[in-house]
């Protein structure tokens, strides 16, 4: 029960988090500007005194508000104990560097904010490489960004190269996982994009894995729904329509790519940078799945919420554009794409293969798959943190003030009376990485996701 201060160097002082007076003194005497709350009650004590636990534990307070920077700061707080190579940067505090990033991001300590600003100009939408996951076992990281703006003239950016070099630290090799095929990445140079060239990023090795996105994905879901609604009652037709929809192929390749990234980190002991083109869709899919494979903490209910909060909501997945219309409609909207649904499906496949390792149940995934399209809560509103107002009174637009009136889905789910429904009764903590099998025979159709359009009863037991 001790509060940890962010201390680069200099004195360490132990403080009791419950002793406000002492804490206040400390802050004033040491001119502390940053206070990171990094404490939690042991569950046994917490159970004995619920009121106390609520007062001390941060989860209750922070992730239940969609407008906090819970994820980033918490990860940073965890990092403090591990390494001094990373820092929290507020270069984006007014969203001027990258409109789709949150205000605070984690970057290598040796990189100045000015460098970040320049690097951001070299990345599409300003999404410069930031930390997504720090693997405690070996100190390797997963970074994510958008594609570099190489263009037809093969531009380069020293700051970006510097940034990535700093990510590697002393290591001589890192992997860049591009979620486009090599050919697509090459084509992107014609419209100003591209991928990191070997000669400028000598210590990075590029791997291409083609993940479908956007329209193709939406088309796939529409076909899947059509297949489920087919009235002919003919097995061959169903199988060929299921195959034709390619939905499970997308699930398969997402899991393969995430497995690859996790393999780089855990088995190879290398850091990885993941990006596609915009860095807001397949990139997030891959990084969040890789985290789920590697990090036991993400497999708890609160950890999973935090993962979604940080890797999807704050990381700027444009929920409003991607899930504007129902997934089950035939309307072809330009930006509509069920990327998040694909993520949930992959999580479900993991839960099938490791039924004891995930603390959340299928019900949570099903709930999320519905909430993301039609919700009573504000959690999945807007496209990025910039659109989400931080404080009452400072915003004028009506949409933003509406947002302030919404409640958090997490707060609702985390109420003790609801939580039981979303908990896997067989959960037991498994500290190992969970490597999913990606054989076609090991993947199944997630009927829960489609239960809306399937007339049959979804299977309720495991």
């Amino acid at each position, binding site marked *: 029960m001790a509060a940890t201060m962010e201390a680069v160097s200099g004195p360490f002082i132990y403080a009791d988090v419950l002793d406000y007076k002492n804490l206040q003194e400390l802050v004033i005497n040491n001119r502390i500007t940053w206070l990171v709350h990094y404490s939690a009650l042991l569950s046994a004590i917490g159970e004995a005194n619920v009121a106390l636990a609520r007062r001390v534990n941060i989860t209750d307070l922070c992730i239940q508000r969609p407008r906090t920077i819970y994820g980033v700061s918490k990860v940073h707080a965890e990092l403090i104990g591990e390494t001094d190579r990373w820092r929290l940067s507020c270069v984006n505090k007014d969203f001027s560097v990258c409109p789709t990033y949150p205000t605070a991001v984690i970057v290598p300590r040796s990189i100045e904010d000015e460098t970040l600003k320049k690097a951001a100009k070299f990345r599409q939408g300003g999404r410069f490489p930031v930390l997504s996951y720090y693997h405690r076992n070996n100190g390797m990281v997963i970074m994510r960004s958008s594609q570099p703006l190489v263009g037809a003239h093969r531009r380069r950016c020293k700051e970006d190269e510097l940034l990535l070099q700093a990510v590697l630290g002393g290591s001589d090799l890192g992997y860049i996982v591009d979620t486009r095929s090599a050919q697509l990445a090459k084509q992107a140079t014609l419209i100003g994009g591209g991928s990191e060239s070997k000669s400028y990023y000598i210590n990075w090795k590029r791997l291409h894995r083609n993940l479908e996105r956007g329209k193709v994905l939406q088309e796939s879901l529409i076909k899947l729904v059509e297949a489920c609604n087919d009235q002919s009652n003919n097995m061959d037709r169903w199988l060929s329509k299921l195959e034709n929809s390619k939905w499970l192929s997308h699930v398969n390749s997402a899991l393969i790519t995430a497995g690859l990234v996790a393999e780089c980190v855990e088995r190879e002991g290398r850091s990885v940078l993941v990006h596609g083109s915009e860095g807001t869709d397949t990139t997030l899919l891959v990084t969040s799945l890789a985290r789920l494979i590697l990090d036991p903490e993400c497999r708890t209910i609160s950890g999973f919420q935090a993962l979604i909060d940080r890797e999807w909501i704050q990381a700027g997945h444009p929920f409003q554009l991607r899930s504007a219309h129902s997934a089950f409609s035939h309307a072809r909207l330009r930006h509509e794409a069920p990327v998040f649904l694909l993520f949930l499906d992959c999580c479900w496949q993991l839960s099938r293969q490791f039924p004891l390792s995930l603390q959340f149940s299928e019900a949570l995934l099903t709930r999320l798959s519905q909430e993301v399209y039609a919700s009573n809560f504000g959690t999945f509103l807007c496209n990025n943190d910039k659109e989400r107002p931080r404080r009452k009174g400072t915003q004028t637009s009506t949409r933003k003030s509406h947002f302030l009136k919404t409640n958090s889905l997490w707060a609702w789910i985390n109420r003790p009376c609801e939580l039981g429904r979303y908990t896997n009764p067989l959960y037991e903590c498994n500290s190992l990485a969970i490597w999913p099998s*990606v054989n076609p025979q090991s993947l199944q159709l997630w009927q829960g996701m489609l239960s809306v359009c399937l007339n049959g009863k979804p299977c309720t037991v495991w």
Partner: protein
Amino acid sequence: MEHITTPKVEQVKLLDRFSSRATAGTLYLTATHLLFIESNTAASEETWILHHHIAVVEKLSLTTSGCPLVIHCRNFRVVHFVIPRERDCHDIYSSLLLLRRPASYDDLYAFSYNPKQSEQQRAGGWQLIDLASEYERMGVPCDHWQLTDVNRNYKVCDTYPRDLFVPVSASKPIIVGSSKFRSKGRFPVLSYFYQEKKAAVCRCSQPLSGFSARCLEDEHMLQAISKANHNSRFMYVMDTRPKLNALANRAAGKGYENEDNYSNIRFQFVGIENIHVMRASLQKLLEVIGTKSLSMTDYFSGLESSGWLRHIKAVLDAAVILAKAVTVEGASVLVHCSDGWDRTAQVCSLGALLMDPFYRTIKGLMVLIEKDWISFGHKFADRCDQLDGDPKEVSPVFTQFLECVWQLTEQFPQAFQYNEWFLIQIHEHVHSCQFGNFLGNCQREREELRLKDKTYSLWQFLLNDQENYVNPVYQPGFSETHPVLEPSTLPFSFKFWRNMYHQFDRSMHPRQSVLKQVLSLKASNRDLEKAARALEAKLQKQGVFLSIAVDSKSKDPVHPVRPKSLILSAPLNCKEDEQKLSVCDRVRTVEGSSSAENGYNEEEEEPASFTKPEPTLVSLERGVARMTC
């Protein structure tokens, strides 16, 4: 024994079917098993392959690392050995060819298998399932159905059992006349009696009607069955074949009932394909799922073109029609196919399973199999290739039945007392020839073989292991609210049965098993309760009474009991044991999961630099590559 020339080969490699993993070990050939023991010192795993399980042995062409020997088993295990010397490989190969199919029944494993039971226990095992009491449970004999002794000596039909139930109004001449008009003499008899509506499920073989022949006795027989049920003015005759097949049979003097000749019947085809189509279909399915690094697209198109799930659906569809006719319309149904021992057995038994909750219990499924499959003469010896017979007679008809049951357990998890391991165990032993139950083609043959004196019964063996086969979410009360199951037979309700067809491919399975977990939780719960009781008894001896602890336990036995006093007062070594156990469990459940096995990296660039396999693996991989080139 005379077939074995090389009983032991060292430094054999066992290759994993899907990943590049290989293990080295020693191969032993015994009179009954082929045995592979890993030479890895720590956890030397053993692979036992019963000779009777072997379906195909292939010797592939020589490679640098040795001579590959691929064995396909009836329980869907596929093993790939690499034997260093070609001569050893050839010896094993030719021995296996002779050993896998004995020429006579006496050489089957069942006649040498000895579980060290007394004669009394052996006899007890055979008395476990009593069909007479099963018919009694159904409610026959009654005022419309009686036991006939016409087949006492297997005179009328040698593939039927001795005891048969027929309508009271069907006299002996009618039965005999009818049997002469039915293929193989298999006249209409009772298979299941639905007491609530007095409706009967009867079974027979196809009539020898040709283009115009008719038989008055047979018409009387059907009339009698129809009349035995007052609830319905007509009865259904279900021909389980596709119409085209039935038409073709007419040319051979067989065929189907003409509705004009039989009063008050409603005739229907349901279109289940014959044994040859089913055999080819399974063959195709196994080929598809055995492909290394199979793509999602190929998997689905392979699944489609194999037609396997289509056939499973057809069988279940027919059973649903049967169950509906009986339970909803209250009509009697006569089911037949060509000879009335394959498709008819499938449809009758599945129909009964849908109608009667008893068959959804462990004992009930045994009774059902004993009745509709074993006693009515499903040709297990031919279909499962027990002896060196005609390969065209082999067909996975019974496997399909088990799969249909499994599909139902997936749809109604709480309705079945047994879990899928029970089904898989039965499948295993149908082919193992380790027990007497499934030997031979019909009851008469079994009696001639004196199986009850010479072999053991599988059912006793399974019941001894019962706790492993209990479905943890089974709710006995479910049958009261849902006496009749109404499954969905829409295509998306059917799944691929991975645990059956990939039973031995560890990389395919869920990495943690809910079933195992629940079973071990239950077991540890039992142990803890036992320990608690023992300790309480001890305390009581000492004159201490712990009333509170006792109460909390008896109230809530489902949750793992965790009273503080228990853990504190338990002997120290007990606690350690528990910890050890849980550690082992964890290792076991997660060990199957390794990124190397999954091959995320298979499609592109240099995999060698990436996955870093052990040196032995690399050379093996090359060996395989060359072999396939």
